[in-house]
């Protein structure tokens, strides 16, 4: 059992938890993810790693309550335990393994959308610890969904916050914000990392392609085991079938077949909703939301 040592609401629908998992904490690097099973009857769901602390033996996860499982997970309290917690899964971000001098030469822009800000954080923090300054754009539909702003400001050089509805920060999408930075504010970047809902990654990557910025995206697809065994996470990248769990989760943002990935994401929407209806009276999984949002997937 994996104990919840800390729980904090980052907004009305976004939960942060520190989970006691010493082996996972020790092995985690930026870019990787974990699989959590809430209780004996739960699904295996892939979740973003937001932070890890080797000394405390904890891994910090962040998730949005978009489906039945995540809603019930949000009901767990400090001191409760999850049934299973495994990882880290996937490859770490490329820059972790590149020579530091090369990494330091790059001008990074990180773009996080919604809960996608959470997996951006450990990458930015790692780079800060290795004396690499980066810029971050974090966007969400509204102010309630903006998370980890203070933490990010401590780790990044410049942080740009934007909301779709203008309720906080720059009024507009992350793509509007990036266009503004590059076209009006004289910023230039030569490496972009985009993590968020699939639709957001699709359009942000389209923009970085136009701007000529090499781009990495992180895919959180449907998964079961997370170790390469099931193949549920298969995605088309540059014409080849890749498994997000063992080949990814990070891929060339300009080569991913986003439309195919989004279609596969919809696979369990109705089925999960059907199961959810049996247990709650609330609204079922909304197909237009949570699509690709880190921490929102069902496996």
């Amino acid at each position: 059992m994996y104990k919840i040592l800390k729980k904090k609401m980052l907004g009305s629908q976004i939960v942060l938890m520190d989970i006691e998992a010493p082996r996972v904490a020790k092995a985690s690097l930026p870019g990787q993810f974990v699989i959590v099973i809430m209780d004996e009857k739960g699904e295996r769901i892939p979740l973003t790693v937001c932070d890890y602390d080797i000394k405390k033996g904890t891994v910090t996860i962040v998730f949005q309550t978009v489906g039945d499982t995540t809603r019930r997970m949000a009901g767990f309290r400090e001191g409760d335990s999850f049934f299973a917690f495994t990882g880290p899964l996937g490859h770490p971000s490329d820059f972790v393994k590149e020579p530091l001098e090369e990494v330091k030469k790059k001008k990074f822009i990180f773009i996080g959308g919604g809960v996608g800000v959470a997996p951006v954080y450990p990458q930015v923090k790692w780079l800060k610890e290795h004396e690499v300054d980066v810029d971050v754009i974090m966007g969400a539909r509204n102010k309630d969904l903006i998370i980890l702003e203070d933490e990010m400001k401590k780790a990044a050089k410049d942080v740009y916050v934007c909301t779709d509805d203008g309720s906080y920060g720059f009024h507009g999408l992350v793509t509007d914000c990036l266009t503004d930075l590059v076209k009006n504010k004289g910023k230039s970047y030569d490496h972009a990392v985009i993590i968020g809902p699939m639709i957001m990654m699709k359009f942000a990557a389209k923009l970085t392609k136009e701007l000529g910025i090499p781009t990495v995206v992180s895919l959180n697809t449907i998964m079961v085991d997370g170790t390469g065994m099931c193949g549920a996470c298969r995605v088309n990248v540059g014409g080849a079938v890749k498994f997000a769990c063992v080949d990814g989760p990070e891929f060339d943002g300009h080569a991913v077949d986003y439309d195919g990935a989004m279609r596969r994401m919809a696979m369990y929407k109705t089925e999960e909703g059907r199961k959810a209806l049996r247990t709650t009276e609330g609204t079922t999984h909304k197909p237009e939301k949570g699509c690709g949002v880190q921490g929102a997937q069902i496996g």
Partner: protein
Amino acid sequence: MVNMKRTPIGEQAPEKRITNFDEVCLGYTKEQMIEEANRCLQCKTRPCVDGCPVAIKIPEFIQYLRDNDFEAACKKIAEDSALPAVCGRVCPQETQCEERCVLAKKGDAVAIGKLERYVGDWTREHKFNLNDPVTPNGHKVAVIGSGPAGLTCAGDLAKLGYEITVFEALHKTGGVLVYGIPEFRLPNSVVEYEIDNLKKLGVKFETNVIVGRTVTIDQLMDEEGYEAVFVGSGAGLPMFMNIPGEDLNGVYSANEFLTRNNLMQAYDDNFDTPIRPGKSAAIVGGGNVAMDAARSAKRLGAKSYIVYRRSEKELPARAEEVHHAMEEGIEFHLLTNPVEILGDEKGWVRAIRCIRMELGEPDESGRRRPVPVKGSEYEIPVETVVIAIGTSPNPLISQTTPGLELNKWKAIVIDEETGKTTREGVYAGGDAVSGSATVILAMGAARKSAKAIDEYIKSKKK
């Protein structure tokens, strides 16, 4: 005069069993068992033993059964096999021990598998303890994977006094016996009993540890004090056919389909994991895994088809599984190969397009190569397609273990007699080495490795 017909065994009726996931074969009663055991001719030449990959002393254990000495029968099998209740259920006996049975020349072979199962089940039901007390020898060995190979290696070494930890990537122990083989063929309780036995022997199990990600073999040996490691991590990544439409919604690998249903118990509404075979499902492949998927889909309420490119004779599945599948109304499209999976406007599977095949000249496997019949394409309307054509090795361990040599199929290279890899102190066996094979072969390989690991550690001590 020996009865040339095998003693019938109780089974759930087909029309009943397709509505549940309970075991199909009910096993022999004591009377039936004795009747069947009495058919054994106790041949001096013992051809059945030669047919067994681990050379179980078959005539001896059958003789003990006839004598009503079940404890002795248990011990006799235990000399060679750690998992009789499992192998009695899943071994392809008709191509092993039973194929060689002298009676098979004129009639039915002795039902050796069913008798083995009887012994395994008797051991479990009577909680018969086969294990002598063990004195710990103070040496630590890590076993990766809790499937047939891992369990066997762990058991053999624990009995020699080694301190064993089994690392399992999933949240439940048992490997393919639990995630792959359905309850109707091998109940989880049978596997759990074997694992509990190992726990009583002092074997520790750490679930949710993915060796190669959570911890590396180097770390296990350098930081955690394991003197040797046995890799029994199984066959890994599912293969797809590379035909158009495989990325449509409703296309599964057999691993995914079976894992959802068996490990995650998706068939049970009390569990959260979804599965959705729809009204009809086509399963591509002809092995045990394909039969398991087809019969699972049927039990989940779908009309179920097997699509296999060779003929019935070449079906690699156990004869009993093919027979049961046919009884259950699984429709076999033999000498048929899928060419494309067709989707609807929303990207969901609506049909599988197939082409008829005919058998041509023998290929490198010695089987006649199936050749497409021009213009014979046709469609089967289905909502689900399950690809059950095999797996390729998982790269997680090999990528993170320097010095571990792989062959051209990316399987771990070993010395056949000892399971020794190219990395000192690291041994491997089972599907991680051979690719998809059988439980009994994995078990046999694991026994060799356990013996070699013992010798290796003893020689180091000197």
